[in-house]
């Protein structure tokens, strides 16, 4: 409990350059759960129990549909209507309960705001009751969201993050390295296990041309999947003599890790048909065999049907490089298949949809202004060091998640 209090205390710390306060650290959802079950006095943050207006409206309209169906079914039996009615039932129950609680909460709030001496006792009771209602609303919110927005099929998986420089030459390579470190720091803060699968320093060693991180935490994919896309940095490169601000980019790919990080397992390899993958070793030309002794153990896989190529070379063991390459190949294919399915499903419904995946230039890291702006949700955080050292990244991830949920709601269809 002490640790939690300490972390709550860290919620409000002065930002480094401005004199207003910023949220620096928010414990994960799970620690909140623990928190209010053992110590109801801690208040529950709004976004834990308040349903977004979009979701609320959606639930409202589905409830209307349900009522209509009820009425129409009372008149004449219809198989299709009956089925839709049954489908909506659970949602309507939750939504009704949620609305009821929400109304009760409003009443209690009024009581709790009373200031005269006589109502003091009442006020305390109201506060306690509000807490209970919020807890139950948080549960209902979760259930309604799950029904309206089905969870991503890979939500519970660990993930793989790939980092590559975009435009901006060596400064882009440096930024790519900075970004990879940012997520490593984040994992460390979260006490998530991770390992570096590949790490290729750039020509002069100051940045990287490629980096691959495996984050072993179940659910890491769900938390980080919106980090995939183009990240932009604006700063004065160390090598820039005239002190001009440069803009460079790095691209991140986030994949679900379907196979265990255990590189001795052949699980991923077995999921491919014979002949589906071509395996090449990339060795120097020459007599080979007993004539030479190389430490080169690089392995390259080519997935013939899609042309996807994965190369691994960081391990001394040829087999481990191969097993890792298969793990990444499988992850890339799974993601590709899923994305294609999502796009197809959406096109089937409407031609005008915004997609939450991989928008270009999703975030800007501006060093001179000490700010990070996420262009999707419009959120700006004036704590660049906190972001890069991983401690403030959670706040940003929360905002992005919120935005993504709202996007999903816009594309919503209840099936």
């Amino acid at each position, binding site marked *: 409990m002490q640790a939690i209090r300490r972390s709550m205390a860290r919620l409000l710390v002065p930002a480094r350059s401005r004199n207003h306060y910023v949220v620096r650290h928010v414990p994960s959802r799970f620690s909140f759960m623990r928190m209010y079950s053992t110590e109801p006095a801690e208040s529950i943050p709004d976004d834990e129990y308040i349903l977004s207006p979009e979701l609320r409206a959606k639930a409202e309209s589905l409830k209307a549909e349900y009522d209509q169906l009820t009425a129409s079914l009372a008149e004449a039996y219809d198989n299709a209507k009956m089925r839709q009615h049954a489908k909506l039932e659970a949602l309507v129950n939750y939504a009704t309960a949620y609305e009821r609680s929400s109304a009760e909460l409003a009443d209690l709030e009024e009581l709790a705001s009373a200031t005269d001496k006589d109502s003091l006792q009442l006020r305390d009771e109201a506060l306690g009751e509000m807490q209970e209602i919020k807890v139950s609303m948080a549960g209902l919110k979760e259930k309604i969201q799950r029904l309206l927005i089905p969870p991503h099929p890979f939500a519970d998986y660990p993930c793989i993050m790939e980092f590559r420089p975009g435009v901006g030459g060596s400064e882009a390579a440096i930024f790519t390295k900075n970004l990879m470190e940012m997520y490593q720091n984040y994992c460390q803060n979260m006490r998530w296990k991770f390992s570096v699968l590949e790490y290729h320093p750039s020509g*002069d060693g100051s940045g990287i041309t490629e980096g691959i991180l495996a984050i072993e935490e179940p659910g890491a994919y769900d938390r980080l999947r919106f980090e995939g896309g183009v990240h932009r940095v604006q700063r004065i490169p160390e090598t820039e003599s005239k002190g001009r601000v440069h803009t460079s980019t790095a691209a991140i790919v986030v994949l679900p890790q379907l196979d265990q990080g255990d590189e001795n397992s052949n699980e991923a390899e077995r999921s491919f048909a014979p002949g589906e993958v071509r395996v090449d070793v990339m060795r120097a030309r020459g007599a080979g065999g007993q004539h030479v002794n190389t430490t080169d153990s690089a392995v390259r896989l080519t997935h013939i049907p899609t042309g996807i190529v994965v190369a691994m070379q960081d391990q001394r*063991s040829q*087999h481990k490089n191969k097993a890792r390459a298969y793990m990444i190949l499988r992850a890339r294919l799974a993601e590709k298949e899923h994305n294609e399915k999502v796009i197809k499903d959406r096109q089937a419904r409407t031609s005008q949809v915004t997609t939450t995946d991989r928008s270009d230039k999703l975030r800007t890291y501006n060093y001179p202004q000490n700010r990070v702006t996420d262009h999707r949700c419009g959120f700006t955080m004036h704590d660049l060091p906190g972001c890069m050292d991983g401690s403030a990244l959670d706040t940003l991830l929360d905002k992005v998640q919120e935005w993504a949920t709202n996007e999903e709601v816009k594309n919503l269809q209840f099936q």
Partner: protein
Amino acid sequence: MRIPPAIKLIARKESPFLPLLLPTLRDLDSARRELRWITEHFTEKAGSSRKDAGLMIRRACYLRGVKSYPLQYILGSQPFGESLDIKCRRGVLIPRWETDEWGMKVASGIRRYHPLFTESKQLSSDFTVLDLCTGSGCLALLFAEQLGHSNKKCHITGIDVSDKAYALANENLYANKHVIKDNVSVSFAQCDIFSTEMNRLVDSDVDIVISNPPYVSEDNYNSAAHTESSVRKYEPRLALIGGVEFYKRIFEIATLRHAKAVVCELADEQQFNDILAATDGILNHQQQHKSSWNVGAMHDGAGVVRTIIAWRRDADKEWGWLRNLVNILP
């Protein structure tokens, strides 16, 4: 070939050890990778003493980069197969990636396609492997690891003439025993495969003979274009120089022990043809009668003809799947 000064400069800026590695490894990427392996190894070895680690790393990089000393002798091991760690020491050949590659293909193929492993009714006989010229024991242990993924009782014997190899193979068996399952037994023996003692040593029949015998010709051994100077300088001559006589002897032993299949590593396509010519009397591969052998060769991942694969025509039911590995016919 000189290393460009720009590369040297970058290396010096990055780490004091990196420039030491460049003369041998030539490019930054390889040098960085080996530096990482060296650093990881000696940091762990030195434990808390950072000063010791630094000294060990410097010495290792000097040996590796300036003296072209094999990394595997410096670190003392080479990963092999799925999760074997083969100890490496002066006097015994370092396992090669090509051997790892074909060994995995053949051993996992046996487990997947050989009737003794695939047929559900328990066939009474055990499966036996003979590894001639076993050296560090890497191939014998790789087969032990792979066949351990089944329940079939297997016996694997490795033979080598060198006492250094015999001692190291036994150490490797001990060091990797956690990887080897109970259904598999491995033993090593010291013997010259050309001696008559060989006949006494292996007195029962075997299913398959595997071997990576010395196959570098005297000429190629002395040609820098063929054989790396560090191989010549640091690895044992006894493990390297050899030729057709070894393959003839291997097939003789295979015939004597009624082996149904033989897979051996070799130098190149020329040697494959030489072996075919020299062993036709034993294999009768050009004839179609039952006691003759099917023979072919397989490329390695770099596209060089690397193994000879042979199985008896009357054992096609058990070993016909080897055909899928063959990409060169006589």
